[in-house]
Structure formats: C-alpha cells, structure tokens
C-alpha cells in the first residue's frame, strides 16, 4: 500500500515506523539522513565510519520506534540522538579524537535539492549565530563535547580545569544556547562577536 507522507508530521511518520512500515523509515531517512550524516562526519571525520553511525542510528530507531513518546521528545531529537550517540561511541572506540576542532569543513558543493540546501543553510546560520553569542569558554565546552566526543572528565583533564567547572560551563552554555535559539533578540541579524575581555 503506497503512502503519501508529505502531510504527516515527523512524529506521525515515526508512529508508522513503529508499525514496521518500511516506506515510513525511508521517509524518515529522506527527512533527516543528510543532517545525520553531517553530524556523524563532523564527529568521526571518516566517511565510512560516519555511514556506520548513520546506519546504526536509523536501525536503532527502527527497533525502538514503538517506544517513542512524542510528549518526551521531538522525533528529530529522538532520531538524531541515536545517530550522535553512535558516532560518539565509535569515535571513543577508534580513539580518533582531536582537540583541534576544525571550525567546519570547507564549503562543499552540496548537491541536494535547492530547497533542501537553502533550508539547511538557514538552519546552520541560525544555530551558528546563536553559538557565536556564547562566552568563549562555554562555546568551547559545548563544541568539544558534542563534535569532539570528549567526556566531561576527559575535557577537564585536557583543559586543566576541575570537572565541576566543565560541568557548569556545559550546563550554563546549553541553557543559554536554548534561550538564544528561542529568542535571538534584536541583534539577530548582526553577528556580534562576544568580547573576549570585559
């Protein structure tokens, strides 16, 4: 039975995945495969390993879709968490981590649909703008943890800080980022670099 998914929310698509609907899984991939691959590649810096992380993340979703609770998470968060967690597991196992966070990969000719490219670019700029408004130390803690795959204890050691300090930078940074994403404020369009000294 062919389905048309265009009118369905992400959460409704996951509900269909829970009924073992393979075309719903395909739809989920079409909606999030590219972001999933992007973050896995950023963490792992290896195309083969990134593909593994994406595949395992989607299969985890396939196996657990019947336990998805829409009141607990958005479908996108739920799915991308599986992929990210898998990427972090792999990077820790492969011991591929480095502190030299490449700020981002050089602009690549992204050959998706023009619409998708435009939307992803918009999202990227939105989140990057918010990130840039965080104090340097908080942003560094978030980036090293999320993109670098470092645990809080490893970060404490590398940065020569007590674990409590790292923990609190992450908490404050993430909470602040949440506010910035919810309400970027009047300076939304201007990229205001955070003053490094006050």
């Amino acid at each position, binding site marked *: 039975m062919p389905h048309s998914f265009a009118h369905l929310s992400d959460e409704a698509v996951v509900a269909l995945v829970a009924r073992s609907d*393979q075309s719903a899984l395909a739809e989920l991939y079409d909606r999030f495969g590219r972001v*999933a691959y992007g973050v896995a590649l*950023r963490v792992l810096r290896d195309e083969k390993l990134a593909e593994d992380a994406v595949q395992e993340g989607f299969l985890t979703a*396939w196996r657990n879709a019947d336990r998805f609770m829409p009141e607990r998470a958005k479908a996108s968060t739920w799915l991308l968490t599986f992929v*990210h967690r898998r990427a972090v597991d792999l990077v820790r196992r492969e011991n591929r981590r480095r502190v030299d966070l490449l700020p981002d990969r050089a602009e690549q000719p*992204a050959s*998706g649909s023009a619409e998708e490219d435009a939307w992803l670019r918009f999202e990227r700029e939105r989140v990057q703008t918010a990130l840039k408004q965080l104090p340097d130390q908080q942003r560094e803690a978030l980036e090293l943890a999320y993109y670098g795959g470092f645990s809080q204890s490893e970060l404490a050691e590398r940065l020569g800080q007590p674990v409590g300090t790292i*923990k609190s930078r992450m908490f404050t940074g993430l909470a602040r980022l949440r506010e910035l994403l919810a309400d970027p404020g009047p300076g939304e369009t201007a990229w205001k670099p955070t003053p490094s000294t006050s």
Partner: protein
Amino acid sequence: MEADTIHQLTAAYALDALDAEEAREYEAHLSHCERCREDLVELSETATALAYATEAPVPPADLRARILQRAQSERANIVPLRPRWAIPVAAVAAVAACAAIGLAIWSTSLSGKLDRREAALSAQERVAEIIAQPGARNISFSRGTLVVAPTGEAALVLRNLAKLDRRYTYEAWVARGGVPQAAGLFQGGDAVSVPLEQPVRAGAVVMVTREKAGGTGAPTQHPFVTVKSSTQTQ
C-alpha cells in the same frame, strides 16, 4: 548537594559527554526525578540543534538502500511470540520465560491505558510480521483481509468495525473439520489487526462473532464474517 550535582549532569548527558558508568548512574536517577526529565527534554533538543550547525554534505547514494535492506532483514528474523506451533520447543521455552518476566514487569509498572496501547502496537507488529513472510497469501472479503503465511500463521485485518460496549467483545474462530476453535478476542476500531491464535490450514474457515465480554469456548452468535482459506496448497 548530591542531588544538585546529579541534576547538573543533565547537560552533559544531553551532549553525550558522560562516560558509560556516569551515563548509567544518571539514567537511574532520571527514572525517579521529574525535574531532570523535564530539563532533559529541553536540553536534548538544544544539543541536537548543534547537529544543524555543521556542514551537511549529501551522504552516499547507496546508504539509504542499505539501511532499508538491513531493516527488512531484521524484521524478517523476528520470532513471533504467538504462534507457538511454528517454533521449536527450546525456543518456545526461552520465549515463554522472557515473556513471563516481561509481563510481570509490564503489569506492575504501567498504567492500564499504556498496556492497551502497547498491546495494540504489538498486535500490529505481529500482523506486520505475518504479512511480511514470503509466500503469505491475502484473501480479501468485504470488510477486510485474511492473511495466511505458508506456516499457517494468520491474521485478520478488518476495517470500520463498530466499537462495542464493555459488555461485549469480538471473538475470532478458526474451524477445522467443522469445529470452531477460539482464536482471539479483540475490540472494534477503524482499522483492526488481529493475529489469530490458531493456525489456518488449507480449507479452514475463519469466522468472527460478537460475544459476551471475556469470550466463550464456542460461538453463540451467527458469525458476521466467514472466510474460507483457499483449498490450494502452495
């Protein structure tokens, strides 16, 4: 103070920045801390936003097909719980033991509402497994479809079945040699999936009646669905 420390782990957990042992400890705490569960909803969503802040190159074209293929093969390997006649004895014992443990946890920890939702989902899952079996046959009739796998595992999929008041239930029957065997109780709904608890062999007749809540050992009403499975064996 101990509690405050562990509350603060919510951000690190959302960022996947705990080691395995810390993560387990935090998850144990999460199961009885409403405040952390609420924080985690928000902070996980924010952490996931970081996935969008990075360049998103197009993944290799064959990745999608590989994921779908793996998903399909996993689904085909799942051993259905219900039709025990199709499973070797040792496997039945193992499955039954797991099911008993699972059921004990299930019945003590969840509300009745959740139980029903889970039951409905797992019925759908079992039906999906039967439909997915190679060689499964569909026999359509006016209100739906009977699906029969070569093993005899079978399911009814019924459309627009009126909801009954709580004094009544629908009951499925599989008749072999003229003797109907009870094959499961179910409720009405827009689309109802009913895995049958009796195998459907060539020539068997599948029926549905309305019965008193709790079901009966033999049909007391005239069946409103009667489907004969094909006499052909494949």
